[in-house]
Each structure stands twice: as C-alpha cells, then as structure tokens.
C-alpha cells in the first residue's frame, strides 16, 4: 500500500464526508453531556479543510497534514479544534517532506497525533476523551511490524471498543466533567469522532487495496 499526496487528500476528504454524515449523531451525543456543538463544530472545520487542501495535490504529505491542523484550529471553535488541530499538525511534522506514505507510517502518524492530543489536553486514558479511542488503536498498530490491512482493521476495532468503554466511565475533562457521575452511561463524543475518522481511513485504504 502506498498513498501519494493526491490520495492522502482523498482520504482526508473521506474523513470530512463521514464527519458530515455523522454531524447530527455527534451533536446528539454532545447534547447529553456537553455543549451540543461537537457535530456542528467538526462539520464546519472539515468543510473548511476540504476547500483548503483541494489544491494541494502537488505538496508533500507533511504540508497537507499540517494545513489540515492549521485549518481546524481556526474554524472548529470548540475544544476539538486545538485538540485535533494539534494532532494533525504533529502528524504532519512526523511524516515531514514525504510525498508517499505506506502502512508503516500509520503508527508513526497516529502516535504523533496521540502525543499531541495528550500534551494539548493534559489528559490520559480513562478520562472519557478522544484518547480512549485513539490510544488503544495506536497500541495495536505498534504491536507488530510490518503493519498491514488486517492490523489496521484490528486497530479500528480497538478504537470502537474504546468508544464503548467511555460509556462506563466518569468524564474528567471539558464541559462533561461538570456532570461528574452523571456522565456515566453516555458515550464520549470526542472518542466517537476519533473512531469515525479512523474507520474512514481504514475504509479508504481497504477500498484502494481491492
């Protein structure tokens, strides 16, 4: 599997599409425990991303990912802006000037993204955040090498399990933390959007391979 700059843009557009499709669902999740804007914010952000990267087919993968991050931090509005923004910017730094990515770049990209989110949000696993979906996926991708589509499928499954896990825990970060124990029983919108993005990437790569 190799993904060039134009294909990377297609994958990001697919993420944007799936975020768009799940806009109401994400907002609904956020209205239960947060400020009811996650779907709208993410959709606004990725719409802007869509436009911004459409002409970047001749740029390197690092620049494309960094542009995604920069766009998110100025258009999302909510906490997911600086969090996902930092994630994409760190991912961009990690791949640098490469014009083509392969499976083995995946753990590097997602690990950089995870570290970025942890730094920005000062959060760890178990606090009902994006990290509860992303960290298990990164752990799977790092456990064996070379990375292949099977391992990627397993990583997406781990992210999905991570989303399920957020239902049973208390929110420690963001607006949901004001709810304390009352946040139990609800799945975290951030973990959910993270899973949606990972699943979109998997789908794109899977379809390309077949």
């Amino acid at each position, binding site marked *: 599997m190799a993904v060039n700059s134009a294909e990377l843009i297609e994958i990001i557009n697919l993420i944007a599409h799936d975020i768009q499709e799940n806009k109401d669902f994400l907002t609904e999740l956020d209205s239960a425990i947060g400020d009811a804007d996650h779907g709208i914010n993410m959709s606004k952000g990725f719409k802007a991303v869509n436009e911004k990267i459409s002409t970047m087919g001749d740029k390197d993968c690092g620049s494309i990912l960094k542009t995604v991050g920069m766009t998110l931090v100025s*258009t999302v*509005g909510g906490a997911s802006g*600086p969090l996902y923004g930092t994630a994409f910017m760190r991912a961009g730094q990690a791949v640098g000037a490469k014009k083509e990515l392969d499976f083995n770049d995946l753990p590097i990209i997602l690990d950089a993204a995870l570290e970025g989110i942890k730094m920005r949000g000062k959060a760890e696993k178990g606090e009902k955040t994006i990290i509860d979906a992303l960290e298990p996926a990164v752990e799977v991708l790092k456990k064996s090498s070379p990375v292949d589509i099977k391992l990627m499928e397993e990583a997406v499954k781990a992210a999905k399990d991570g989303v399920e896990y957020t239902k049973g825990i208390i929110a420690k970060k*963001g607006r949901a933390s004001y709810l304390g124990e009352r946040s139990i029983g609800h799945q975290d919108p951030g973990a959910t959007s993270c899973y949606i993005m990972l699943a979109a990437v998997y789908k794109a790569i899977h379809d390309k391979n077949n």
Partner: protein
Amino acid sequence: MINIVKVKWGDALVGIVLVSHSKKMADGAKEIIEQVIRGKIKIEVAAGTSDNRLGTDVFLIEEKVMEVFDGDGVLIIPDLGSAVMSAEMAIESLEEPIKSKTQLADSPFFEGAISAAMEASFGKSLEEVKQAAENTRGMKKIA
C-alpha cells in the same frame, strides 16, 4: 487610537486580551472594565468564531495579542476549555519578542480580567498583572 496616559505607579504598558467562547460575554466584560480603565491600557476581545458561532479561534487570538502588544507584555484571560487550549496554541505560534512576553492567566474570567486591567493601568509589570488576576481565585464577594 487609544490615548495612553502613563501614571506614576509604574512605566510598564501591559496589554490584555479577553478570550471567550462568547463575543457577547467578552464584549460585556470589556465594557465594564473600560468604565474604570478609561483607555489607559489596550484591552481587546478575541471571542467567537469567524462565522459567529460560540467558540475560540487560535489565529484571532494571535492577531489580538499583536494588536495590544506595546513592548511590555500581554496577559491573556481565557474563559474555559477550548479558550485555554486555543490561547496556548496562539502563544506557541507567536514570534519573538511577543511570544516570551505573552502569558496566560489561570483565574476566574471576569474577576481576573478586571483586577488585571486595574493593575495594568497602574503601569505594573506583566508578572504583577498576571498575579493580580490569579489572586482573584479564592476571592470572597460577600463579607
């Protein structure tokens, strides 16, 4: 242009940026603060998104910090959540000499903002202005 009148307590000119999800809230806070500051310091609002939703915007914060910077520093007062993270990102992406002279106050939004603005209007240093904001953390309103 704001007409800046230097007062005798100090010579520093620290600017203040109010970062909030809501432009209405930050504008309202600024309005109350201006009543006592009367143009002695530069205070700006970086609040809401460019399409008028509730939220914060890293680039807008950066722009406002540069606008109020007069050489002695800028204190950012964030409301909560993304305001804190966006402000941190804005500071990271600023260039020197502004970057190392821009700080984030860990304080209640309005009480911190008005105390900081008062202190800044006396010509106090960035550290003193920040301290004034953070001293409001446990402030009692009712005796």
